[in-house]
């Protein structure tokens, strides 16, 4: 799916090193995603997956390494600027505006867009019928899984070029999870790059073009999703057999 005119991957985060306080959490972590690719990060809890996502999004000061998006070095940019460069992010927790209605949550996703957002919104509602019913309800009153759907919907509203999802399927029911993965494939097919963290790793790796296994802030395995799934060692240690 790589576009021939683009020798370099669309997103390339090289050798990221950094953390919250004095101690580093990331130890030279590298992530790359091409246009239209789905990249999945898996790994044990506390491995630094969310931290790596935040680092890519510019929410964490990096001591080393750089982030390049579409050929441009965006390492010094603030998160807002990265949004304008076409990055969208769904954090793992606190990923909705609780007192705003579902509809307003989606509108906020489209904050940087100046065109008509109604069509995208209709598509989101289409994708998540459960939240469509609740469009006038405050998002904070939704169930855990419904919130998760709103959060993903919000990011889709941005119409990003790179969509970053931190455990989008945590707490959603199997049927919705399948729908969601389906949708992610669809999105990727339109040329949008996807970088996501997943603990529902087997399903996620099935659809992944590239998979990263992150352990203690460093890349342990990097391969196609299929290859990782096929590796018994990876399966046993990281994917729960």
């Amino acid at each position, binding site marked *: 799916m790589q576009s021939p005119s683009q020798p370099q991957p669309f997103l390339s985060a090289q050798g990221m090193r950094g953390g*919250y*306080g*004095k101690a580093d959490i990331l130890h030279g972590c590298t992530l790359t995603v091409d246009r239209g690719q789905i990249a999945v990060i898996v790994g044990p809890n506390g491995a630094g997956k969310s931290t790596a996502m*935040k680092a890519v999004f510019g*929410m964490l000061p990096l001591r080393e390494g750089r982030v390049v998006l579409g050929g441009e070095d965006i390492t010094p940019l603030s998160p807002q600027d990265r949004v304008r460069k076409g990055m969208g992010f769904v*954090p*793992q*927790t*606190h990923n909705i505006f609780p007192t705003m209605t579902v509809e307003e949550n989606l509108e906020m996703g489209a904050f940087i867009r100046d065109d008509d957002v109604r069509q995208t919104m209709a598509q989101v509602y289409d994708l998540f019928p459960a939240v469509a019913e609740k469009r006038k309800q405050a998002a904070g009153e939704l169930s855990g899984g419904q919130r998760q759907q709103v959060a993903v919907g919000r990011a889709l509203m941005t119409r990003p070029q790179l969509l970053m999802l931190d455990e989008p399927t945590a707490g959603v029911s199997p049927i919705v999870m399948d729908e969601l993965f389906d949708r992610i494939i669809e999105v990727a097919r339109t040329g949008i790059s996807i970088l996501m963290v997943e603990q529902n790793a087997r399903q996620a790796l099935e659809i992944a073009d590239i998979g990263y296994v992150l352990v203690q802030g460093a890349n342990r395995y990097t391969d196609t999703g299929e290859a990782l799934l096929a590796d018994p060692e990876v399966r046993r240690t990281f994917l729960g057999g």
Partner: protein
Amino acid sequence: MSANRQAAAVSPWRAPILFAILAVLFLLEGTVRNGLFSGSWNTALAILNMGLISAITALGVNMQWGYAGLFNTGVVGFLAIGGLAPVLVSLPPVDGAWAAGGPRLILALLAGIGTLAMARIVHVRTRRGWAVALVLIGGFVAYRWLFDPAVTAIEANNAARAGNIGGLGLPVLMSWIVGGLFAAAAAWAVGKVALGLRSDYLAIATLGIGEIIVAVLRNEDWLARGVKNIASIPRPVPYEIELQQNPEFVDFAARWGFSVAEASGIWVKLCYMLLFLVVLLAIILLAELALKSPWGRMMRAIRDNETAAEAMGKDVTARHLQVFVLGSAVIGIAGAMMITLDGLMAPTSYNPLRYTFLIWVMVIVGGSGNNWGSVLGAVLIWFVWIKVEVWGPNLIGVLVGPLPDGDLKAHLLGSAPHMRFIAMGLVLLLVLRFAPRGLVPEK
């Protein structure tokens, strides 16, 4: 995404150093005379004494806020109610007051409490609103029928000089404990009603309760003469005049090279200081013991996350009530001590800016959750609060110095007293800027 940043570790030397700096400030105040300090031991000690009382108040607030996250802005009310104790305990009895209406008054108060208890029983037994209302209305009528004539009689008794119920003539030190008990009782009643409220809602409720307590003190003349004030509350320490007439003391003063008046002032203040220190240290000791044990851990857990603490078997309501009562009792003790030190009960002076928010400033500047922090913050802020009275005008004097003479300069110089607030504000902002979690942060 977590909002936590890893807090920089705090040096264990920080508190001792800051206390040392504070001590130096007081030493300077006592010895050096310039634009910043007055060079008088009397002033230094006077500030220190009030600072110690503030420290005890701050400890009380810290128990409620720092340990349990209860936002009590009714501090002024609990201070005031504690201040009632010296009046009722240690003042000599007022001739005729008791005879005029004492028993009836007690009866009335009993009737009032009885009514509330009855109402509660009826409520629990029958759950009928109208029955409760009936009890309340009946009780209220009975209460007023007993209460009003008693109050009129007491207030008419020697209205110009007394007009109040009078005290018991007991030693004033006893009233400190009673003050704590008064405040604890009030806090218990308040807590039963208001502790269901959260954060700022609790704050405004307690603010209101504080105002109500003060309003009662101001308007119920039979209690402590209301706004007419009570002066000459007995002291637990010698009077300066007595010392000045005591030849031994005069000799003693001469030996140290002080004038008698000065020496007597210092002596009295030292006596007070000792008393206050004893109380302060005792409270800190008990508080630290509790805090450094599972009780303290439980409190921190409750403060962090009430829902989870509740699910982990902690009776959050009961614990809140406990710590609210304890903290208020400490504030009440401070209130009684303050009235003892002032020798005067003047309800008009209980304003929330001075007795609630300034105390809060002390707690936060000191570092909430930390007892030593509260003490440090209290003494420091009180020192500043008093000293800015001089610093402010001096500051403006320096600032306008280069200006040409004229209306503007005159206007600014004329406004010098208002620099008091500006200076206070600046100090507060600076401290918060350089120690945003307080001078001595928790742990």
